[in-house]
């Protein structure tokens, strides 16, 4: 009696193929594919400047970083990693999809860190609100930032460098601002 027939073999092969397909398609960690389709990632500098803020005879060191981010959903990124996508494939996935931009910025004034909520920017200007940040290492999740000032900058080329000047208002005090930017920013 032959128990291993051609049909048996065919059924076994079919089931094995189904098993493999199911394993590769289904076996994703929970939630990994939630955000598929609307995720991008790209970080570009909008502005980087370092200099001083003056108010009469007072002055403080001022540093500003502003960046534009094409926000990627971390879940989406993880799904790409899970699928063993290479960095090139991930780059293509990000670049080929729709792009949703957001901006974020930081500012350090008088040794104190602040968040910079950018309200407008282009190649020659930048404006934003200065917001409080929680203490170093604190949880920002439930932190409600407070607006403590605003800044308005005019960006131009000056003596071969990028120079920015404008007004920083902090707690009702107006400061004149003079900043230089890294040479790399010239490209932007």
């Amino acid at each position, binding site marked *: 009696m032959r128990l291993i027939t051609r049909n048996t073999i065919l059924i076994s092969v079919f089931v094995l193929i189904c*098993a493999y397909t199911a394993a590769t398609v289904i076996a994703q960690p929970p939630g990994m594919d939630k955000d598929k389709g609307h995720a991008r990632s790209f970080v570009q500098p909008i502005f980087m400047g370092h200099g001083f803020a003056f108010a009469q005879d007072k002055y403080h060191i001022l540093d500003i970083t502003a960046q534009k981010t094409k926000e990627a959903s971390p879940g989406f990124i993880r799904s790409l990693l899970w699928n063993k996508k290479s960095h090139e494939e991930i780059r293509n996935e990000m670049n080929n999809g729709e792009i949703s931009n957001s901006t974020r910025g930081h500012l350090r004034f008088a040794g104190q860190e602040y968040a910079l909520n950018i309200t407008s920017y282009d190649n020659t200007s930048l404006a934003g609100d200065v917001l409080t940040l929680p203490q170093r290492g604190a949880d920002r999740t439930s932190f409600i930032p407070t607006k403590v000032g605003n800044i308005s900058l005019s960006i131009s080329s000056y003596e071969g460098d990028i120079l920015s000047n404008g007004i920083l208002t902090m707690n009702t005090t107006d400061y004149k601002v003079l900043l230089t930017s*890294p040479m790399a920013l010239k490209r932007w």
Partner: protein
Amino acid sequence: MNPRLFLILLTILVTCAHAQETISEQPINEGQISEEQILLNGYVDLSGNVLLTGYATPESLYYMPFLYGTNYSFDNNSDQLYVVTDSLTSKIADTWTLNFSLDGYYSDYSVTFYLPPGSQITKFDIQPQLNYQVQVKEDSLILSVHGYRTISPWIKVDYKLPPADIQGQQNNQITSSASILLILLLVAGATFAFYRFKLHKETAIPHDESIDQKTENMPGTETKPMPAKIPEIEIRITGEMQKVIDTLSDKEKAIILLLIRKGGTSTQADIRYEIEIPKSSLTGIINALNRKNIIKKREYGRTNIIELSEWFLSENKVQ
């Protein structure tokens, strides 16, 4: 040149060229400190892989030791770095460590890591000059680190994944697929076993007392231990039987001899498998033998049981 050797050398050359991708130039003059800027996002998955992407000055790549030996891409037009690496993370017991250390001097440093959802940071160890905050969002624990005019910045964070995620993560890339495959292989095996059982059931002959009696009463037979379903009794071919057999065709002979070998009874399916006669031909031959009263055929399930006739076994006395 040996083609194999040539291929090996070619492979080595291509690999080396690929590894050199963008590190073919010396970064800066020795002794000169360049001022770098990085604005990077790092996405950490459950298995410790990290996608690091964002803006970095070209020279800063030389200060990223984790890039060596790792495939990455860097767009010289947009200064965008894309790298997937597992060298930024390590794991001891159930604690993961994210270690992001750079060389060089950075006038602007901003790095945001997105740890897997549910991660619990157990220890921060970050360069004092760097400011950082954490934030929980629905799909990540976000660690934002930024600083200005910092030298050789470093971040070391210990974190734990929630138990379910730990299991999921461990299962994710290795065990999960393997487990599912194993389960489905078991299903495949069960299907196979079921099919085999079904086939066996269809072709099995029930223990038939009449057969036992018949074979026991046969003269000149030697009884052997009988299987539960198919009695196999040696039948001695008498002279009369041989005369009948001599009148048969080769295929008919083969069937009769098989039945004799199998103690006088077999299923039609077994006969087909063992003699390798096509099903349609076998049916005709069986019918012919039946007409000649050499065999008897009776239906059993989806097959037939073929038995040597009493006439044939009783040395042709009946005829």
